[in-house]
C-alpha cells in the first residue's frame, strides 16, 4: 500500500457520508465527548488491510442524524432506531474508508455493534490508532477511530 494520509482520508470520508446519506455536515474539528449520554459503535474489517473502526457521538447528535437519515421527527424515534443508525453510520464510514485504502481488493465488514463508551477504541492490537479525529456536528461531536492490524 502506498503512503496514505489517513487524517485526510478520514475527514473526506466523514464529509462525504454525512452530506450524502445524512443530509448533514461536519462543521470542523471538535473536542471528543468525555462522557454523559454517548453512543459508540465498533466493527472489524477483514481483507488488506485488516483492522477495526469505531464511531462515538453524543446522544443528541445521534438522534439528529437518525432523524435526518430516516426522514422522521426527532421525537418519533425509538432508542433502538437511533442505535441502529449509529451502527449504520459506522458501517458506511468504515466501508467507504476501507474502499479508499484499497480500491482493488474486496474486503469483509463484520456487523457493527453498539459498545460501551470508552471501549470502542479497545482493539487488542496493542498499537495506537492509525487515525482518530473528532468533528463538530449538529448536536455534539462525532469521533471516528481507525485501528489497523500490523502486518506480520
Amino acid at each position, binding site marked *: 500500500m502506498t503512503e496514505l494520509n489517513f487524517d485526510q482520508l478520514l475527514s473526506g470520508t466523514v464529509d462525504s457520508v454525512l452530506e450524502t446519506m445524512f443530509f448533514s455536515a461536519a462543521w470542523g474539528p471538535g473536542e471528543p465527548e468525555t462522557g454523559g449520554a454517548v453512543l459508540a459503535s465498533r466493527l472489524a474489517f477483514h481483507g488488506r488491510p485488516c483492522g477495526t473502526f469505531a464511531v462515538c457521538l453524543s446522544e443528541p447528535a445521534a438522534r439528529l442524524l*437518525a432523524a435526518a437519515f430516516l426522514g422522521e421527527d426527532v421525537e418519533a424515534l425509538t432508542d433502538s432506531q437511533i442505535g441502529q443508525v449509529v451502527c449504520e453510520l459506522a458501517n458506511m464510514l468504515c466501508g*467507504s474508508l476501507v474502499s479508499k485504502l484499497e480500491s482493488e481488493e474486496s474486503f469483509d465488514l463484520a456487523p457493527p455493534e453498539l459498545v460501551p463508551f470508552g471501549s470502542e477504541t479497545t482493539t487488542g492490537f496493542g498499537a495506537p490508532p492509525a487515525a482518530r479525529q473528532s468533528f463538530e456536528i449538529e448536536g455534539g461531536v462525532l469521533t471516528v477511530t481507525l485501528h489497523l492490524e500490523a502486518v506480520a
Partner: protein
Amino acid sequence: MALNIMIVDDSPVMRAFIRKVVGLTGLDVGEYCEACDGEDALKSLGERWVDLVLTDINMPNMNGEEFVRRMESDDLLRSIPVIVVSTDSSHSRVQQMMALGAKGYVSKPFLPEALRDEVERVLGGGT
C-alpha cells in the same frame, strides 16, 4: 407500470432509508417487499413476484453473494434484475457481483440520483 421492489438488507434502518430514497427518485413504485438476508429474500420470492431486487452484500445467514448466485441458478428468478447496494466499492467486489449475475451496483454513500440512474439503466429506461 408501477414497479414492485424488494429491498434486502439486515439493517431495518437501511431498508427504511432505501425505501425513502427510492420514493425521492420519482420512480413509480407499486409495493415494497423487505427481507433481512438472502435466505429470507428467497423465501419471499417464492411467494410473490417483484420487478427489481436491491440487495446488500454483508448479511447473516445468506449473504448477498450467495443470494445472487442462487437467483442466477433459478430459471425463473434469474429474470429479475438485481442491483447491489453496498459500502464495498472495491473494483474486485463490483466485478465479482456483476460476474455472479447482478445487473447493477450502487456504492454507499450515494445520492438519490445515483440510485435512480442505476435503476433506470438496469430497467432500460422503461420505468
